[in-house]
């Protein structure tokens, strides 16, 4: 938006009208300065936001792959656990003969480390994921604050600039309705001109 605003003033400035009309030239120069400052501020704001919001966002996002990987591993551990669990149960259901019992024990032996592993992973995730999620608050709050602040600063600056400009150009500063009426009056005056009415 600032680019198009700058263009307005540039075009105006380059207009031959400026040569003829000193007042106009002044007005347009002032407008041009204001627009250029607007552009500069805008750029600054963009940079600021980039630094304090966009990049932190990216960094935060880079943690997620690890999390996904951990979840996946837990999932795998769970699968193993289930599989072995099923095996144990299968043996438990069989009649308790020697070999079966032997197998049963063996299965249980196998099961134990896998279960422990799974539980460990599970616990770890249960413990750490909430911590991760909760830390987002602390993490993002500064970013948001910065974003808001940048915007506020920008807009207040703009407001000031344009306020100054209106002061400079238009001391009396007629209110809108009056301007409108004035415009209308002028337009009707123009329409009344014979040269306009022709053709």
């Amino acid at each position, binding site marked *: 938006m600032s*680019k*198009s605003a700058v263009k*307005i003033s540039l*075009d105006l400035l380059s*207009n*031959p*009208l400026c040569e*003829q*009309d000193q007042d*106009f030239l002044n*007005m347009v120069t002032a*407008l041009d300065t204001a627009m250029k400052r607007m552009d500069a501020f805008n750029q600054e704001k963009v940079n600021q936001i980039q630094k304090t919001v966009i990049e*932190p966002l990216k*960094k*935060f996002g880079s*943690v997620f*792959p*690890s*999390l996904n*990987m*951990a979840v996946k*591993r837990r999932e795998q551990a769970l699968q193993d656990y289930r599989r072995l669990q099923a095996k144990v149960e299968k043996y438990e259901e069989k009649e308790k003969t*020697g*070999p079966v*019992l*032997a197998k049963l*024990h*063996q299965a249980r032996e*196998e099961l134990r*480390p896998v279960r422990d592993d799974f539980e460990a992973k599970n616990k770890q*995730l249960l413990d*750490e994921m909430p911590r991760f999620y909760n*830390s987002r608050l602390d993490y993002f709050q500064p970013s*948001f*604050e910065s*974003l*808001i602040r940048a*915007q*506020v600063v920008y*807009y*207040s600056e*703009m*407001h000031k600039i*344009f*306020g100054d*400009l*209106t002061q400079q150009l*238009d001391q009396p500063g007629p209110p809108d309705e009056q*301007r*409108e009426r004035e*415009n209308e009056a*002028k*337009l009707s*005056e*123009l329409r009344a*001109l014979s*040269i*306009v009415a*022709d*053709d």
Partner: protein
Amino acid sequence: MKEQDTSAGCLTCTYFHLTEKMTPQAGCSAAETLTQEEEHQMQRMMAKRSKIIRELIQTEKDYLNDLELCIREVVQPLRNKQIDRLDVDSLFSNIESVHQISAKLLSLLEEATTDVEPAMQVIGEVFLQIKGPLEDIYKIYCYHHDEAHSILESYEKEEELKQHLSLCIQSLKGKPNLLDMGSLMIKPIQRVMKYPLLLCELCGSTPPSHPDRGALEEAFAAVKGINVNINEFKRRKDLVPRVEPAAKDCGKGRHRQVKDNTFNREEKLFRSLEKTVRHCVKNISFCLQNIQDAMPLALQSVMELQEISCSKDEEERGSLGAPGNAPNPCDDFVAHLQKLVLTPLSALLSLFPGPQKLIQKRYDKLLDYNSYLQQEAGDESNLAKKEYEALNAQLVEELQVFNQAARKILSNCLCSFITLLRDLMLVAQQLYSTVQPGPLLVSNISEIQNQVLEEFQNLNFVKDNSATFIERKLSFEKKKYVQILPEVPRQTDTHRAKLLSTYSTEELYQAKRKCNATQENDINLLEGELVAVMEQKDPLGSTSRWLVDTGIMKGYVYSSFLKPYNPAKVQKVDAENRLCDDDFDNISLFVSSRPSSDSVTGTPEGSISDSSSSLSGTFGKFEANGTDVDSFQEVDEQKCSSTLAKGIAGCHLALSMVVVDPDKTDGWIFYAVHAFQARSDHELSLQEYQRVHILRFCDLSGNKEWWLAEAQGQKGYVPANYLGKMTYA
């Protein structure tokens, strides 16, 4: 030329060469001559082309010099002299502009030709670039020239003025073609008419393959067009013959050729106003468009930020009245802008064409009038005069009003625009302020965030799973036990070697799995670690705990965690259980005499198997899963401690020796893991996976490497390591 000749010669040589290769002998000569001619043609054209270009540049230079001279010696002195009735501008109008454009053209031409290969020089582009200003400037000059000429003639009639003029001429130091004013003044006309001729020639001598060709054709057309326009312009003028001296006398004063300065001024203002208004409308609309695009997004972000801060603080924010009117600021702005700025400007813009037409009409009337001027005052002439004058007066008067009004509207609109922008900014600022009124230290942001990021690094799942860690973990695969029990010093090769050398294989056991120390004097073992059993009982007399030496330390472990060490084969942990139920039938095997069929679980280093290869026994590869065997030990335990003792005793098995009760060989079915080709009568050929019945686990000389096997009624010796324990699938 010489160069060109030789190059031409070279070129033709190349052609000759090529054509010789490409075409058959018969048609060769014909092809030759053709290309040679073409080549010559090309050369000629290029030569002519460079000549024309040189001429173009040279003449432009000369022309420019003449112009300079003229300005310096004639125009400026005359102007400075401020002679009363000598209007220099009417003589020379915009000769300075002509000079400027000519200088530009010259520099462009030089740029296009110096240090540029003749084959690459593009002159057409130069003219195309410059054609716009060229036309405008020369048009003006030519327009005024005829008038100027007649003015000159009138001056010449006056003695005083004539003297002034000749004075200037003399200062030109009598250059051959600058003999008088007339010839000076006509120079630009002549020049602009020369351009088409030059370009035409140049175009004609540019070969079609040259990059300049197209541009030249275009440029030629353009320059011709310029001349046409100029002529057109002049033609209108030609309706007006030279002004009679009488015209001057009849008191029209300075309005010689009916020039109305006031009108011109107003017209100029009118034109620039029109342009301004046009641009304003366009640009402001564009700006509005952008704002319209941007504002909703800004509003949305504000609302979302509010939501976030709401849910975070879990307070009711009273200022959420904002969403209600949030969409409005933008619409407001848009509406106001339309009303105050765009509509008036567009309306104004639409008013311009009317006067424009009238202005055009006036011009025509002017021409008419002027054409009548030379004739006797007659009715027609009067009529034309009246018409013209009426129109002129009307325009002059009303244009002034128009311009003023337009100017006011324009400035009003601009001011409104600025005010609106200001208000919009205020609104936006306020919006954003409602979200988070707290002050902020910007510098802390990165600190805080880095802190949080560091905390993340501490989280386990980040440590375990982040990309860098994953890589490292893979390389740690072999040493993963270290990560599990970092506090336990790992048993290294040296330790194992030491154990192996210090103790006999009977005493060597391996940890089936990780053993954690539970009682005092217990030690931790990692899966697969080698230990040497020093005593098969603990201080309390229980035989379930053994004193073992890990090479690093000595301590107690439960015997159930240990299995006899089989260095024969390093096996991967096989999830498949190859020893199935049927093997249990021969449990006697395992009680009394154990084939040390343990597979080595875990990951012993290769060095172990290397060092123990010498120990590799007469036993072939057993596919048995160590865990199965382990469970047999479990079975043992379950029986009773007495049998346990026996079983353990039975565990003392030299790996390279099999204490096998020959009486119990009935069950010894093995299969050939590999095919084996018998090399003598004593040996037995085996096919892969062939089942054999082992009669003896050593040969006649007691060599444990060869077993006596029987298959399909045949007996013979087979190498032990080709055999695997039979599993009944």
